[in-house]
């Protein structure tokens, strides 16, 4: 079986799909093994990113998309008019001749959609566009990824988890063989050369675990100045850290093209006496970073590829999210990683937008002293960090929780973390769990026989999200949610009945108008309550579609109603199951 994986984004985005690649490899080997066929996984990436093959296991061949060459030749009057066209055509032709069985498009933009549509394959997962611009997703997860662009960040699934799920990772995760050895272990590969160089770097630092200090990696640069926290603040953070323990060693990471900046940063500590012995430049390659982070205790970084390598390693990741960094969708994804982010309303800004503020507010509102205290608390222990985080009010602090098998950011210092949970917070948590199960079910990968297990996972996720809310209060909130959802269930059923009646007369504008009015009324009623707010977006997309033919609109509405019925049913099952778990816990405590 031959599979092509397309990822035409930046290095960090390619690394963040490592878990999906592992799932894909396991699924492919399973299918091919049953049919006694060899398997091959090919990767299509931008020129400049191909070195990622060294650290991604299981890639048999890398194809290059000559993005820079295409872009430069199109705008350069001195280059042949058809150079870009010919380069692209040659690429499409060579990929077509590979005769792939499946293509997975983990890029999810129009360029990749058109490209995926052009390359023949029996199965295509991810965005693919045909000659008329018609779109297919090949998976409920990718269809959902397309929709969640409009979601609030807290409602969104992490992109690496969407890819992981679409590649069958969630289903594999439920298998017995991954109960002990977690499926996310070993998603990146160490190389002998990388390990050797990492050992040399470690030796240069003089780090001695017996002294009790920590080995901390620091990534100060990012691909976009908007995402940078700032060298001055990093300098202050480093000084705090090395002063807090003589055994700490700080590695300032950088790629070869960043060598000058990194050396200048390290040399800026020359006048600080002996502390400079605790700070070292580490200008290293990707394989060396993978090996280094396996022995580091902590990696502090902005939104970079180092963050994703850190999430795949045993080091705890501490992301300082600024600018366009979106921790909910593309943040660290390992259980127990951390993110801090400003509460400025303009964050996260668009990737391509220039900052419109007079100052870099999203970075300035993350003071170095406060960040240093948090990191020191983290190095002392997670309980100490929790205590310190609860006292921070200037910015948000999140911890990654994977209780349900997907990354979720739990706030460590929001109102709902420190006080009673509110209706909206619990509703959001239950809705996320229900949505995950509905999407897995639509992809044909979830067996309802495991509802008990999923309920327990959702229960664990709820408890870790609201640690200070009593079980009695949670049961009360869930009870209220059940009432609202049952009411919504009735409303949706009545809409279905009306839809069935209109079926024979959908060409009648008056009938359609009545139906659309009913949908608008339902949207308005369901939108008022946090337990049923998830219905707004799908109903809005039906209401806003006034261009499609009546039959198409009818089909869309029928599909939307079926989707809402599934989601409400799933949410009700989860609520009842979680309530039962809470009752069981209460009974245990009373004994």
């Amino acid at each position, binding site marked *: 079986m031959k599979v092509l994986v397309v990822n035409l984004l930046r290095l960090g985005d390619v690394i963040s799909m490592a878990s999906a690649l592992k799932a894909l490899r396991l699924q492919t080997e399973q299918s091919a093994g049953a049919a006694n066929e060899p398997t091959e996984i090919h990767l299509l990436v931008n020129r400049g990113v191909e070195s990622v093959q060294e650290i991604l296991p299981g890639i048999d061949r890398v194809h290059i998309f000559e993005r820079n060459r295409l872009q430069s030749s199109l*705008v350069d009057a001195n280059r042949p*008019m058809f150079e870009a066209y010919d380069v692209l055509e040659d690429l499409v032709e060579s990929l077509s001749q590979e005769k792939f069985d499946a293509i997975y498009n983990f890029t999810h933009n129009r360029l990749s959609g058109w490209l995926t549509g052009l390359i023949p394959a029996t199965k295509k997962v991810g965005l693919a566009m045909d000659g008329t611009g018609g779109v297919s997703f090949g998976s409920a997860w990718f269809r959902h990824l397309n929709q969640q662009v409009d979601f609030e960040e807290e409602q969104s699934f992490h992109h690496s988890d969407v890819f992981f799920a679409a590649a069958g990772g969630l289903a594999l995760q439920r298998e017995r063989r991954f109960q002990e050895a977690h499926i996310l272990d070993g998603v990146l590969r160490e190389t002998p050369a990388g390990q050797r160089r990492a050992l040399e770097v470690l030796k240069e630092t003089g780090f001695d675990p017996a002294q009790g200090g920590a080995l901390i990696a620091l990534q100060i640069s990012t691909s976009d100045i908007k995402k940078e926290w700032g060298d001055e603040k990093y300098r202050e953070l480093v000084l705090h850290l090395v002063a807090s323990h003589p055994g700490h060693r700080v590695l300032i990471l950088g790629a070869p093209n960043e060598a000058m900046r990194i050396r200048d940063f390290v040399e800026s500590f020359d006048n600080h006496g002996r502390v400079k012995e605790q700070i070292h430049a580490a200008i290293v390659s990707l394989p060396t970073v993978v090996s280094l982070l396996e022995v580091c205790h902590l990696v502090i970084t902005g939104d970079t590829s180092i963050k994703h390598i850190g999430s795949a390693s045993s080091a705890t990741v501490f992301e300082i999210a600024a600018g366009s960094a979106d921790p909910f969708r593309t943040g660290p994804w390992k259980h127990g990683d951390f993110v801090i982010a400003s509460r400025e309303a303009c964050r996260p800004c668009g*990737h391509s937008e220039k900052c419109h503020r007079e100052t870099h507010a999203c970075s300035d509102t993350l003071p170095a002293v406060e960040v240093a205290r948090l990191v020191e608390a983290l190095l002392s222990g997670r309980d100490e960090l929790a205590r310190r985080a609860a006292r921070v009010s200037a910015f948000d602090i999140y911890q990654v929780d994977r209780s349900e098998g997907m990354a979720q950011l739990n706030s460590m210092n929001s109102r709902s973390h420190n006080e009673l949970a509110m209706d909206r917070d619990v509703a959001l948590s239950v809705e996320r769990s229900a949505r995950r199960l509905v999407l897995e079910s639509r992809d044909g990968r979830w067996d309802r026989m495991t509802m008990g297990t999923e309920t327990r996972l959702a229960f664990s996720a709820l408890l870790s999200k609201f640690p200070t809310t009593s079980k009695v209060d949670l049961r009360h909130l869930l009870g209220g949610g059940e009432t609202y959802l049952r009411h919504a269930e009735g409303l949706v059923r009545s809409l279905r009945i009306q839809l069935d009646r209109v079926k024979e007369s959908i060409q009648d504008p008056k009938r359609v108008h009545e139906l659309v009015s009913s949908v608008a009324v339902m949207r308005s009623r369901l939108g008022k309550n946090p337990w049923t707010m998830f219905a707004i977006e799908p109903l809005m997309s039906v209401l806003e579609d006034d261009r499609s033919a009546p039959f198409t609109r009818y089909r869309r509405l029928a599909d939307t109603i079926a989707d809402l019925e599934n989601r409400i049913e799933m949410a009700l099952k989860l609520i009842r199951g979680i309530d039962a778990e809470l009752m069981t816990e209460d009974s245990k405590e009373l004994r």
Partner: protein
Amino acid sequence: MKNMNSMRSRFAQPAPVVAVPVANMGQPTSCENSQLELLSRLTEASVIIRSEAERIKAIGVSDRSVRLLRILGEAIEEQRLGFQADTK
């Protein structure tokens, strides 16, 4: 619009020799030089346009070609939005 004067195309043919009436056996004036240059550029351009027009025409009728052009259009749009395939 591309600068036809400096365009190098793999379809470009050498410009034909242009006959110039010999009214003056001395050095050409600057005006005549300009005219000669313009004529040469126009001739080269017309050859390029003629050959590439045939290719453009062929591309225009092919679904595959249109889709390839769409990809190129998206690549330009991404460049306009500042996307760079960097290594960070």
